[in-house]
């Protein structure tokens, strides 16, 4: 067998044969039967131990003493680790990941001990029996208007903290029409159905981790140096992952905890399943945001100035600055513009990525403000957006790849029946329900991550093995990457064995930022094309090529973005204020859709999560104690089946060869962007009540009968 050395290869365009068509989801049978094995479902060899986390009950302070005596007397409990007995980490700079390394408590719900037992029942009971003596210090956990804030050095995804073009202050002062309002989004929790979990085994030389993660290589890259190990000593596998939506994009404290536990019991596998309740403190969340948006416009709706000043909060132990205002930098033409981000530092759990960080809360604020401008100017909301189309990216001055927002708006308007929309508010009623429609734009950047590699090997019988460490968290990556490999190699998908989700395979970046297919697919294209160049069309069995992809995407010459338009019809009950989303439509420009089946599911899933944010999701923190009160699925509401009614996702036919050799862009996140704004705007159209904070709950509409004349009946 010959093997080429890994070189950076920039692939050529891949001609579509299998791409663009339906291919059955490759792991469907395993999933509908329950035979797919998730992180704590892998059979283990050896004497299994169950781990249970003990967490702090003060928001700030120190652990004085961990009294494990009662726990250790409980049958089945074998060990209790605390900050004095746990193995030492080689690096404790990241305070979220410095688990059990010292006595400091940075937030309520932080890991302060860990119980190992022979059954999960014993581990759980043991955890309840651990007495943690804590010294409480004064803490601050309320994110309120007027909270002290600071300007971070940069915001998430490496974006600039503040930007200014022209003189927005003067332009706003002189603008004939001004919208100036504050929009708020609450703490939101990713809440994938599979709680964060891992099975770890330390055999004395190597740590093997079956993890529930969006990236096996990123977990290895974080854990190995933390544990003082070489990367080769850590193997991470994630064949099936029960959703993530960002919360499994970065390793969090539980992964460190289970690794420490495994190190403490060489040769014994350790399983840790984080409880649903613990997830609300330990696995990241979308911080609440507060956005002051100011739009200055001509009477015809053309923007002359805009400002988006965004505040969010983070943990004092680790900074995460939501990039709430970045979409405002590129969305619409306005000669004078400014954006700022400020962060309040609190004694709270560490926020992190949740589906479309930045764009989701930011576009909610921006697109409701645009709706307010439409009302203020009397311009149709679609026309208003069309009038503010920029010719080039207002932020960079670069041309867009192919900005098709206007086509999305117009196609959506046609499919939705926008032309029949009455102009005024409270113009239509059906029985006891006020009916309204709303629209919002969506956008998401095309992201490509460097460093991805893939290996192509020929095997007996004219078959190929294609390998990359990418993880399918439910996106359909297993299926879509097979389609890419098939077209890149010029052979049917049935002739390819695709290996994924193992850090032993070529390096793959995170399934996040809607960058997975773009980044991994580009690497597979590179490896497949290099394989053909090395070994021809009829390779001997056993020959292989490994390649790392160079940058294909034209990220410096063009501004690469996806766009969409979301339309909602809401019904608001005139007596109870109940809000129902009767129709929701998204029309997207996302490059080539590689698999229409899995793509539609992802876009619909984004719309559902946007609907969920619009109507339900609201994490409540009690600032007196610093904990999340709504820490389960009975109190932190996510959309259930009956909440979702007529739902539709469509896309424009296109191929984007500035972004990827497949002609595709990412689709994982754009579905959630703008959705809550479209719904909020529709409730305004239905009722005349403007809701500027999520979720759009019934109490906002309780005064409706007093505001409104009797509905005239069916419109």
């Amino acid at each position, binding site marked *: 067998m010959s093997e080429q050395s890994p070189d950076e290869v920039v692939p050529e365009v891949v001609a579509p044969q299998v791409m663009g068509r339906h291919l059955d989801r490759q792991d469907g049978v395993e999933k509908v039967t329950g*035979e797919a094995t998730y992180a704590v479902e892998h059979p283990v060899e050896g004497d299994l131990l169950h781990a249970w986390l003990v967490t702090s009950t003060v928001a700030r302070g120190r652990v004085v003493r961990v009294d494990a005596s009662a726990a250790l007397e409980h049958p089945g409990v074998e060990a209790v680790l605390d900050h004095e007995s746990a193995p030492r980490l080689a690096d404790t700079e990241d305070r979220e990941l410095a688990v059990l390394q010292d006595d400091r408590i940075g937030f309520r719900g932080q890991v302060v001990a860990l119980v190992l037992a022979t059954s999960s029942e014993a581990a759980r009971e043991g955890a309840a029996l651990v007495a943690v003596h804590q010294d409480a210090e004064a803490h601050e956990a309320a994110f309120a208007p007027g909270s002290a804030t600071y300007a971070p050095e940069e915001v998430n995804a490496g974006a600039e903290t503040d930007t200014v073009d022209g003189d927005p202050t003067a332009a706003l002062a002189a603008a004939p029409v001004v919208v100036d309002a504050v929009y708020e989004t609450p703490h939101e929790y990713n809440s994938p159905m*599979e709680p964060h979990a891992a099975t770890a085994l330390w055999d004395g030389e190597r740590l093997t981790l079956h993890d529930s993660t969006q990236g096996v290589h990123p977990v290895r890259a974080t854990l190995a140096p933390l544990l003082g190990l070489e990367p080769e000593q850590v193997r991470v596998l994630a064949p099936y992952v029960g959703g993530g939506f960002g919360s499994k994009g970065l390793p969090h404290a539980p992964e460190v905890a289970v690794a420490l536990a495994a190190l403490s019991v060489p040769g014994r596998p350790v399983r840790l399943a984080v409880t649903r309740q613990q997830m609300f403190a330990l696995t990241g969340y979308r911080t609440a945001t507060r956005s002051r948006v100011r739009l200055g416009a001509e009477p015809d709706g053309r923007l002359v100035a805009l400002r988006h000043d965004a505040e969010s909060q983070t943990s004092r132990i680790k900074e995460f600055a939501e990039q709430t205002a970045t979409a405002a930098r590129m969305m619409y033409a306005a000669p004078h513009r400014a954006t700022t981000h400020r962060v309040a530092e609190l004694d709270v759990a560490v926020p992190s990525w949740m589906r479309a960080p930045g764009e989701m809360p930011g576009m909610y604020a921006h697109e409701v403000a645009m709706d307010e401008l439409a009302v203020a100017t009397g311009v149709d909301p679609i026309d208003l957006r069309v009038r503010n189309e920029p010719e080039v990216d207002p932020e960079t001055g670069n041309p867009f790849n192919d900005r098709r927002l206007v086509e999305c708006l117009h196609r959506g308007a046609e499919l939705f029946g926008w032309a029949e929309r009455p102009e005024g508010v409270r113009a239509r009623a059906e029985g006891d329900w006020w009916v309204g429609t709303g629209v919002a734009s969506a956008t998401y950047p095309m992201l490509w991550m460097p460093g991805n590699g893939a290996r192509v090997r020929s095997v007996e019988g004219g078959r190929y093995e294609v390998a990359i460490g990418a993880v399918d968290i439910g996106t359909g990556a297993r299926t879509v990457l097979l389609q890419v490999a098939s077209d890149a190699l010029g052979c049917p998908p049935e002739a390819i064995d695709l290996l994924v989700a193992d850090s032993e395979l070529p390096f793959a970046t995170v399934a996040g930022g809607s960058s997975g297919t773009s980044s991994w697919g580009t690497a597979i294209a590179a490896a497949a094309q290099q394989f053909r160049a090395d070994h021809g069309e009829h390779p001997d069995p056993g020959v292989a090529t490994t390649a790392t992809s160079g940058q294909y995407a034209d990220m410096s010459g063009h501004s690469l973005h996806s766009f969409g338009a979301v339309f909602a019809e809401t019904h608001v009950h005139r007596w109870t204020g109940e809000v129902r989303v009767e129709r929701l439509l998204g029309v997207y420009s996302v490059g080539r859709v590689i698999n229409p089946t899995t793509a539609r599911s992802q876009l619909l899933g984004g719309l559902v999560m946007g609907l969920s944010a619009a109507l339900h999701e609201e994490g409540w923190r009690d600032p007196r104690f610093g904990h999340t009160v709504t820490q389960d*699925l009975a109190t932190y509401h996510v959309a259930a089946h009956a909440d979702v009614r007529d739902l539709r996702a469509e896309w424009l036919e296109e191929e984007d060869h500035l972004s990827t050799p497949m002609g595709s862009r990412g689709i994982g996140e754009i579905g959630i962007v703008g959705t809550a704004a479209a719904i909020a705007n529709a409730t305004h159209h239905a009722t005349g009540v403007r809701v500027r904070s999520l979720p759009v709950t019934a109490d906002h509409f309780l005064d409706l009968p007093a505001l409104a004349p009797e509905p005239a009946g069916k419109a």
Partner: protein
Amino acid sequence: MDVDLTLTVDGAERTVAVDTRTTLLDALRERLGVTNPKKGCDHGQCGSCTVILDGRRHLTCLTLAVAHEGAEVVTAGGLRGADGALHPVQQAFLDHDGFQCGYCTPGQVCSAVGVLDEVRAGHRSHVTEDLEADPELTDDEIRERMSGNLCRCGAYPGILAAVRQAGGAA
């Protein structure tokens, strides 16, 4: 304290020692290695652990194993036919891509089987318009009856179409 328990799981008789604190879900997953039912919340809030217990859909996280001596449990794995063929509900989930990550799916599938049985047996629901007539498998009935099974991937439109197909509705 451990107690011996005999269950029929997916057609096979199994005897297992359980702690009196062991839920039926943990007895299946951790003691018998039957991981087809999933644990999403452990509090009866998500539906991922749904199985067919003695002929009815049931949340296995909300019941203690010791209460079910002699019970018959059918998980999503046990819905396959003798030849391994998929159950019509499972095939319908594949046909309509009624899932993404797959974690809630075995529970959704078991719940759907239960829903179809319940509608056939004439059980009314919160949204049944005419309580005097036999319920029909309308979209609203499916949505309502499937609402105990959360899907964070948001596959509800596919699940709806799948249940509709498996139930023979238009």
